[in-house]
């Protein structure tokens, strides 16, 4: 499964489990308008670390949380330097 589909699937499952209504998941969707709250994003980071072995937010102090869904996916797709 591609990184992109892993992330989309994780977002959909987390939204369902946390009873959140998701906006359509397009690349330019602002994460603040996605329907997920900050705890849901923490869950997403935890789950993706488990599945991909990566946590881009701890890999460097400079990474700030992305604004759009496309940026979030790019962060995970980008190979760890």
């Amino acid at each position, binding site marked *: 499964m591609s990184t992109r589909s892993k992330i989309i699937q994780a977002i959909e499952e987390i939204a369902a*489990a*946390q009873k959140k209504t998701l906006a359509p998941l397009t690349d330019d969707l602002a994460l603040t308008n996605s329907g997920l709250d900050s*705890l849901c994003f*923490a*869950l997403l*980071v*935890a*789950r993706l*670390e*488990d599945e991909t*072995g990566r*946590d881009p937010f*701890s890999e460097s102090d400079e990474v700030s949380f992305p604004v759009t869904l496309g940026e979030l996916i790019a962060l995970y797709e980008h190979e760890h330097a």
Partner: protein
Amino acid sequence: MANVIITGASRGIGLAIAQALVRDDYTVIAIARQETEELAAARQQAPESIYFAPFDLSEIDKLHELARELRARFGPIYGLINNAGIGTEGILATMPESNIEKLIRLNMLSPIMLTKYVVRSMMNEGAGRIVNISSIIASTGYQGLSVYAATKASMIGFTKSLAREVGRLGINVNAVAPGFLETELTGSMNDAQRQRIAGRSALQRLANVEDVAEAVTFLLSDKARNITGTVLTVDAGSTA
């Protein structure tokens, strides 16, 4: 059985918690810098239930990797007992800065950072228990322990707000505040000295490490499913 990480499990309270949890069928991952004879003996008796992971918890920047390794080796982590700690005394005005920093690093920064990474496994499972070992010194004054007291009080604030944060995900977070305990230290005092300390408590005796361990096993059990964000004091009533 469910995996529980106990920091500082080589002796004292941590070892007693490890023994009680093995009895209750948990799998214990015991962290300390060095293994003691007592921990080695406990492992020999229950080789399938208790594992030793040597690690210096003051190495903050390696805690993420530690959490990953333990998760990969043992599977999901159900419980985390933040127990390792040092009790360095000192009059604040003359206490070496390095001692102040060491206390804060091991007693405060390290458990917060370890929890940050271990709680992720619990979040993924939608279940977990965290117990932070504080002290009655967090809420009662004691000369020479101001920095220690600050670290122990911090664990209570940490407990309450984290309980709010992760409660929705099925994770309970509590603190245990032991009083002055019957340990090797107090064992070496003479009767009069021990009497004097015990005499200040409601029950006229000292609590021991097993009492603290039972409080922790309770908080991990299903019986405590509706208890979160609290402090359980185990001090034979010395702060009553």
